[in-house]
């Protein structure tokens, strides 16, 4: 079944509301309780123990950089900004922290559920993309090794470049590694023939 049809459920989550004592914080806490989320309010700085929370709601009006125990934009969980002022400087600051969603003050009886769904979805999408980009960057950086391994195969097996690439892909698939990893092993084995015998 398509995951998009599933009812989002946050039961068992923990949340932190980073806000001075205020009706807005109380409204968020009340809504979180209805969703089965254990939450508490913190002001003015998060401690290392707070890094385990599943989500953090933070005040964008009186917030400042040193409140967070992680570098700006690198929160290990979804962040939701609580905006009173829509002054561009404050919105920008919330974005710099890595807000995945926001709620506009005053906060009443609604908004928390949809902001959680949006924040969780965009946090994970961003995380997945970051991982993919890192992986692709790593593979791109090893393009010279792939070229070298192909030349080695063309020479040692007297084949053309298409066949050499196919051969390299077969080696990678047989050992369930990426083409880049397989290429590095080939090069390494030629440099250290003793090892290659053991690995064969």
């Amino acid at each position, binding site marked *: *079944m398509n995951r998009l*049809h599933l*009812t989002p459920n*946050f*039961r068992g989550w923990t949340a932190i509301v980073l806000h001075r004592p205020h009706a807005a914080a109380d409204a968020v806490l009340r809504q979180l309780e*209805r969703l089965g989320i254990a939450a508490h309010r913190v002001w003015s700085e998060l401690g290392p123990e707070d890094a385990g929370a599943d989500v953090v709601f933070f005040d964008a009006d009186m917030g400042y950089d040193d409140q967070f125990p992680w570098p700006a934009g690198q929160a290990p969980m979804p962040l939701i900004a609580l905006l009173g002022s829509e002054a561009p400087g404050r919105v920008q600051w919330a974005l710099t922290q890595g807000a995945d969603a926001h709620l506009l003050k005053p906060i*009443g*009886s*609604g908004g928390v559920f949809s902001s959680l769904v949006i924040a969780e979805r965009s946090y994970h999408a961003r995380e997945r993309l970051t991982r993919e980009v890192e992986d692709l960057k790593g593979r791109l950086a090893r393009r010279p090794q792939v070229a070298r391994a192909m030349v080695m195969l063309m020479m040692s097996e007297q084949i053309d470049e298409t066949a050499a690439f196919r051969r390299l892909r077969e080696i990678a698939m047989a050992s369930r590694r990426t083409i880049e990893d397989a290429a590095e092993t080939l090069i390494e084995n030629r440099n250290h023939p003793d090892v290659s015998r053991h690995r064969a």
Partner: protein
Amino acid sequence: MTAVVAYPIGILYSTSGPYAVLGKDGLDGALTALAEVNEDPRYPFRLRPEIGDPGGAIERYERCADAMLREQQVRHVVGATTSWSRKEIIPVAERHGGLLWYACPYEGFETNDRVIYLGACPNQHIVPLFDFVLPRFGTDAYLVGSNYIWGWETNRIARELVSACGGRVLGERYLPLGSTEVERIIHEIRQKRPSFVLNNLIGPSSYAFLANYRRLADADPAFDPLRRPVLSCNLTEAELDLVGAAGVGHLATAIYFESLPSAENAAFLERVRARHGAERRISAFYVASYLAVRMLAEAIREAGTDDPDAVLAIVTTRSFPSPMGEVAIDRRTNHAALTPYLGRIAADRRFEILTGAGRPVAPDPYLVDYDPGALRAVVSGGRGTKPPLQLVST
């Protein structure tokens, strides 16, 4: 002579327009309760109805509600049938610190501080309905609905439940509000032969669908309601006249059926029949709206004021007797704990009650405590599980 205090009560239902039948039941339920309170010497005040009819036009709700709260000193509004109209009234209630008493089943995912929810939310309608139907009729569903939020969301939950049980959704079709062009849908149902059809159509679309499904059953006995029923979460006694014989044998869930076998309900029906005549069928819409006014009057009496916050504090701390049994409002969500029943349409424009939950089901408007996997165990006959709906002793 000292004048008796008269508290104005807004009653805001569309009693004209496309879903007038439901609005009429809501209005009559509220007016009956209001008359009973005004005739009862135990209440040292009167309730004065301020009636508004937006005629089913969405853009008129906001204005109607605003006139009530601003010009007529109304602090409590009983009304709204559709979710769209409820969403129009809420900002007005927030602005003026009023309270909306909403008495219809809806799709959940809302807990507004200015609303008391007396209708069923999904864990009190579609979830118990499927608990009963899937183990008995099978898990291949066909979903139809009118093209707006009620149908979309109820069908989404249905899809989730069916998939969790390893069933399939063989079709999902929507009709524009008011459309009666159901032939293509009936044709597809005949081809796909689902275990059941979930009908979230409203008004004339629903009547046309049931009439055509009856013709299909006449032509092909495989579609007899006893084998392949059409299910509904919002079809009540209010519409059985319009559905006619085509409805007989199909199933619906509700938090009240006229045929509920209890002393409170018998006494209630005697009173409303004296008012409307014996032919009038009484629906969950009527009773929930009636209950709203009775609860409100009781809370005003106890608080000595119609101040919405004082009323809210009383309403959310104890239970109230009603034709559907004792009803309590959950303090955290402002929703009622309600007992869902499953009824089968009988030939006399009533529902024959097949089963009921046996006790009130706590409201769970965000489906926090719901587990689609639990239904799978029931469907596959797992040990230690049993359907939450039990037979009602009659």
